[in-house]
């Protein structure tokens, strides 16, 4: 099989670390009631820095987890990856369409579109891991 472009295996742990780092940042900011809406606009204002620390950390973490190479990336894994991606996108757009129909105010629209930053990646990771777990469980003894 021709090698597909994926990140090296170790980037999964880097991604997990980035994702875990963003959790305390979110919690601290929530408990001190710091808002992500930039009060002082500009490239390096506190609003933008907060945004970088939370959303960008989370998204790049999930991105690295999702697209890190498996230890042995063969054609079966490739097939699982593809079908997981299909289900993730499928579910994401189903949720999106349902939300579009039932939401009727501007602020909620923004939140809902914000979900699209990470929901497809998270769904993909969960489905892909679940499929690999199922595969390993289904193996027959030699």
């Amino acid at each position, binding site marked *: *099989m021709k090698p597909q472009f994926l990140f090296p295996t170790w980037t999964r742990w880097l991604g997990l670390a980035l994702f875990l780092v963003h959790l305390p940042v979110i919690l601290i900011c929530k408990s001190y009631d710091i808002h992500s809406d930039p009060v002082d606009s500009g490239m390096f204002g506190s609003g933008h820095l907060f945004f970088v620390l939370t959303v960008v950390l989370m998204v790049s973490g999930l991105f690295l987890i999702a697209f890190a190479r498996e230890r*042995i990336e*063969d*054609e*079966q*894994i490739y097939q699982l990856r593809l079908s997981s991606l299909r289900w993730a996108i499928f579910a994401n757009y189903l949720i999106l369409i349902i939300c579009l129909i039932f939401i009727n105010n501007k602020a909620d629209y923004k939140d809902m579109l914000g979900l699209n930053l990470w929901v497809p990646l998270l769904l993909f990771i969960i489905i892909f891991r679940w499929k690999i777990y199922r*595969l*390993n469980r*289904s*193996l*027959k003894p*030699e």
Partner: protein
Amino acid sequence: MKNNLRVERAIKNITQAELAELIGVSRQTINTIESNKYVPSTVLALKIARVFEKPVEQLFILEDAD
């Protein structure tokens, strides 16, 4: 499609892990091919055939249902 991999492996006396390493896939893939849960690509089938030095048709056999 059924296959004779298990038998051929026994004749050649190699484990799933050894076969997997020879053709560069995971042991899981060999296992699922043997239990008819995964249909390998043509490239993989040809690689397996090369290991056993037999034509592909002797390893993988079409069934009526296919």
